[in-house]
């Protein structure tokens, strides 16, 4: 058994959340509401000490970088979002921030489109017949899945068959994702069980 009071607190909250499996109850609600409050408080402190203090307050106070007052004011304007009358002022800083998505257009095109098409074309087609067939599967499969998500032509004839093949590949891929997800969820439970058994009760090493 642990002698650290914080471990006992952690164990209490772990069990409180687990109690939800039995049914919704006040203990679970308590833990859930505590979590919301604490995580938002946590966010405030991290934001203050890691971002606003070193990037805004200190440069202005200590180094006299007064031009930073402008983004400081813009950051403050964000908070007008809640005003019924002049909520539109918060559009200004928001408009500035979302403008950066202009950089995303070429980035996305190069990273997720051109590089991916290039890699598909460059798929090595060497080795035995099986390696070559597998390589071809990537090329034909990518095309087939793209055809599946192409909506300007009815799925008839060759196009229909290709799309059908694409949908089979999609199912295989989704199956893999499904299996991985099962694994992930069980890992999360293992993490909590390990905490209860080892850190709290000390029954396993």
């Amino acid at each position, binding site marked *: 058994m642990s002698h650290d009071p914080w471990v006992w607190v952690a164990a209490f909250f772990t069990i409180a959340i687990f109690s939800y499996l039995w049914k919704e109850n006040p203990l679970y609600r308590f833990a859930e509401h505590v979590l919301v409050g604490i995580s938002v408080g946590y966010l405030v402190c991290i934001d203050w000490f890691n971002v606003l203090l070193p990037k805004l307050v200190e440069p202005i106070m200590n180094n006299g970088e007064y031009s930073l007052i402008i983004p400081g004011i813009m950051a403050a304007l964000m908070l007008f979002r809640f005003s019924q009358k002049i909520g539109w002022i918060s559009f200004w800083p928001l408009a500035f921030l979302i403008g950066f998505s202009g*950089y*995303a257009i070429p980035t996305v095109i190069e990273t*997720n489109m051109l590089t991916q098409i290039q890699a598909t074309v460059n798929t090595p087609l060497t080795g035995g017949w099986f390696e070559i067939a597998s390589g071809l599967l990537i090329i034909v499969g990518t095309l087939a899945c793209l055809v599946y998500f192409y909506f300007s032509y009815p799925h008839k004839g060759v196009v229909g068959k290709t799309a059908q093949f694409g949908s089979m590949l999609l199912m295989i891929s989704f199956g893999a994702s499904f299996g991985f997800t099962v694994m992930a969820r*069980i890992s999360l439970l*293992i993490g909590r069980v390990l905490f209860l058994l080892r850190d709290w009760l000390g029954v396993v090493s």
Partner: protein
Amino acid sequence: MLNKNKWLDYLLNIDRRVVYVIIFLSVVLPFFLNPVVDIQPTKWVSAVYDEMEEAARTNKPIIIGFDYDPSTLAELDPMAKALLRHAFSRNIKVLGLNFIANGTSLAAMTMDDVAKEFGKEYGKDYVFLPFMPQYDLVLLNFGDNFRKSYTQDFRGQSLENIPMLSNLQNYDDFHMVIDISGTKLPTIYIMYGVTRYHFKFVTGCTAVSATEYFPYLQSGQMIGLITGMKGAAEYEGLVKAKLNLPTGDGMKGMASQTWGHIVIIIFIVIGNILYYVRRRMNMESK
């Protein structure tokens, strides 16, 4: 006939809490049995191990992005620890980054804990830079000089006073970049970092998002992938086999993982059999 029908109905509509107890036990009991689990590393995990050894050979530091919060802690923390153990045991310096505000303290703790095991000193062997918003911009600026976005470390020290950083400026000075995250951040690293600055990039991800990253592996935008708790166990196995370091939480969980998977597979199979038997009976009775 009717009896059998009733029985099937009962099983198919069994109280979910019975199922809960079974899965809970299948995860808890293996911890008391202490079975030995043998795990074969996959090629993408071995690739990460080899690259880390390469970093030790070229004597260059590495970057690790700790971008996870408590919700994915169980999957990603063992992985982070395994990577750090390998790095510190081979005297590789580590620069930690973080873009997930809710996980900032976690990353700092994980780094400190593992550093303590190997007697590594903060500021000389590893440094943790603070949380930053607008990660895309920070990652872009890093290619030029990370001092553009960062003025101090997580502990509030000025970057100029940190000996490890004196010779470091941008991605070129690091052997590789690893991002550990269950979010979209690895993709952001590829988009805003790899595409422009062409560094060696490795992802440690939760199992949920694993399948999404394989196109990047095939295209070479990513050179290695560690997936979930199993990936951590594989890495721990490699480090144990080659460097004889003790294994960690990833390996510890594998017995429970095994039983968890088996129980779920059995559930799917039995559930489907019952469902079809029940449906056939319904058709016959009609």
